[in-house]
């Protein structure tokens, strides 16, 4: 099987559309017959990442690549960056504004959850330049 690749622009101005890319990926993986547990891991990790992009970084680009062995996800934004990644990874730590919390997010579980549901995760971030999150879920 060849490598399959999908790219999605995430609109950072509209919270109601956050999750559309993750939902489309989930649908594609289902059609391709990917095992349900892998679909679940990819969907949740990607959805959390997509929500983060909208809340914190005014959107960005999501790229998903699938091979027979694994699914690689890259979430790149040009937002304000994460000054202290170690602190941002702590459960319950959040910089989300109150209006985000009133929408049901911003509990400081996004990044820890992305780490939990992916098999590998790496964050590159530069303050004032942006953040790129790399996540992988293995299929075998």
């Amino acid at each position: 099987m060849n490598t399959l690749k999908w790219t999605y622009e995430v609109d950072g101005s509209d919270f109601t559309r956050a999750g559309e890319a993750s939902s489309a990926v989930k649908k594609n993986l289902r059609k391709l017959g990917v095992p349900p547990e892998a679909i679940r891991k990819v969907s949740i990790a990607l959805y959390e990442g997509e929500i983060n992009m909208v809340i914190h970084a005014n959107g960005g680009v999501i790229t998903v690549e699938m091979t027979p062995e694994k699914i690689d996800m890259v979430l790149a934004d040009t937002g304000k960056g994460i000054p202290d990644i170690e602190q941002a990874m702590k459960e319950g730590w959040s910089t989300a504004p109150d209006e985000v919390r009133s929408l049901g997010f911003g509990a400081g579980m996004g990044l820890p959850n992305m780490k939990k549901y992916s098999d590998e995760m790496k964050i590159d971030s530069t303050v004032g330049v942006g953040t790129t999150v790399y996540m992988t879920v293995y299929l075998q």
Partner: protein
Amino acid sequence: MNVQDIMRVLDAELICGEDNLDVEVHNACGSDMMSDVLAYVKDQAVLLTGLVNIQVVRTADMMDMVCIVFVRGKEPDADMIALAERRGMVMLKTQHRMFTACGLLWENGLRGGGKANEHLKMDL
């Protein structure tokens, strides 16, 4: 119990998903915080919430849930209903408050997940 039983126990009104009322469910969770649903929920088929926005439906979809129950008489909007219908999800509305709704379902056999600290140790 099935989704029809949830309707009966909670004296709930059906909003959408009438084709899936026979689906069997065993576990549920109640939360207004979607972050926590994504973090702690595993294999819960029913979401009880008082939060009303499209991300409630997306969260339930990502978690492969089959039914959303809006407590305190909360009403989803047309976009939420349309998305739930596309995903084959049932939406119900009850006038019960969250605590009472969860209690009634527990009393009738639905269960929740483990404790949060147990879940974090759990293999996915």
